[in-house]
């Protein structure tokens, strides 16, 4: 309870075991306000679409969610590279990568579900095999695999290196998957059902609400990742102190015997 390993927990001090700071509290207030505004604008004030009617409102959750998922993926990739590069190696990058992946999986799931529902209403079908949708599904599954690998155990460094390599392989693989599916789809001459579904003609207020949604969700992402990577740091600290305590106890035993 008294180890303060500053290399694993740069933001916590001995008496502050929570992951909140003044900055995150302020940020949280801003996000809350933004969310309330978003809900009011998105669900009530902004007009329904000419063609889609009220179902266009799903877009205000779906598009920011999808954007967040891609952002999280990019951040995981960059953090993984930062960890692997010797000059910037630090477990903080590993924890950011892990936190970002968790948030990314959550929002990818949300965007897939909301997108499905919207598709059901608009196109009459829950799913279609267009490149963007299929690639998002692959990204989702790849991330779940990434999170599973993070849980394999071992030292923090082992976990960090394994998952960093995996993340970079994913960065390699996802464009390839996207490209193959796109190539595959151009064969199929799909009906307009697989067309550019999210291109709606946007009223000014709708555009603003969408933009607001993206901004608020991005801030929320930052808030979530900050908290999560701090709690991961605390987890790691706990692991380390557990080891230290065990070593201390064993040494004390040994000295007791030696006496």
């Amino acid at each position, binding site marked *: 309870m008294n180890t303060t390993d500053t290399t694993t927990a740069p933001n916590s001090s001995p008496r502050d075991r929570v992951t909140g700071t003044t900055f995150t509290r302020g940020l949280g207030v801003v996000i809350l306000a933004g969310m309330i505004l978003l809900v009011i604008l998105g669900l009530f004030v902004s007009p329904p679409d000419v063609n889609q009617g009220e179902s266009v409102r799903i877009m205000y959750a779906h598009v920011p969610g999808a954007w967040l998922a891609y952002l999280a993926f990019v951040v995981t990739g960059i953090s993984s590279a930062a960890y*692997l590069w010797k000059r910037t190696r630090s477990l903080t990058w590993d924890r950011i990568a892990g936190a970002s992946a968790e948030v990314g999986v959550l929002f990818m799931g949300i965007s897939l579900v909301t997108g499905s529902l919207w598709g059901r209403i608009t196109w009459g079908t829950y799913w279609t095999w267009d490149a963007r949708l299929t690639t998002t599904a*692959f990204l989702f*599954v*790849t991330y*779940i*695999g990434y999170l*599973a*690998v993070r849980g*394999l*155990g*071992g030292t923090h460094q*082992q976990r960090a*290196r*394994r998952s960093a*390599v*995996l993340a*970079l*392989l994913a960065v*390699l*693989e996802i464009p*390839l*998957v996207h*490209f*193959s*599916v796109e*190539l*595959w789809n151009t*064969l199929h001459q799909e009906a307009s059902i697989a067309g550019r579904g999210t291109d709606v003609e946007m009223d000014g207020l709708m555009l603003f609400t969408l933009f607001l949604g993206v901004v608020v969700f991005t801030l929320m992402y930052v808030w979530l990742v900050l908290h999560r990577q701090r709690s991961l740091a605390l987890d790691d600290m706990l692991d380390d102190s557990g080891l230290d305590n065990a070593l201390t106890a064993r040494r004390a035993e040994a000295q007791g015997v030696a006496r």
Partner: protein
Amino acid sequence: MSKPSQNSSPENSSPKNTSTVIATARLIATKDLRVELRSRVLLNQVVPFSLIVMVMFAFALDSDAVLERVAPGLVWLATLFSVLIMVSRSFAVETADGALDQLRSSGVPAMGIFIGKTVALMVQLLVLVTLLVGAAVVLYRAQVSWSGGVLLVTTAIAATCGLAAVGTLYGGLAAGAKGRETLLPLLLLPVVAPVLIGATRATESAFGTNGIAISEGWPWLGLLAVFAVLFSVAGAVAFGPLLDD
């Protein structure tokens, strides 16, 4: 089999002597193939498994016309399922007596191990794919002309190379400790989707299914080749760090 005259540092980043890498690769590849030759696991277990899978497809799909149309896809699906087993086997051979750890600590370049295991896996996969295509001809009434055959052989080489590279890479990650082997399908199958798409489309052309011309198959070969090259290079680089657990 260690090389005492080599003064590579314990770190994986020692300058690679190309001839050492190739020598290691050749050694590992022949070792793996010899192990397979003597234990015949591929022949006795994996091939029957894949043939049973082909039969089960027929039960599930229940229509000659449908089967003939989807035959290419079924061949490569059966191959993918078999890859999972073969990769597990390829690394079980190493981890059984801690051989992998000893290989690494003997200073052998990881790139050589990767290339060796990939080549061995690719040879085994080629044998498997050949048998599966034969099964498709027999069970699903697929037809292969001479020009189709050329496309088929090239497709098989490109696809199995990609599959072997990715399999060895992710197999290295999933090998060994408990709770890891079950991770392999989850990690591997999404990654090999491009191979499934490309190989199936190319094989469709080769079989002439749905009247698809053979010329339409060759572009897919490009996709397969890109995949194979990309992951062979990525694997050669990433295998060392992944193994150093």
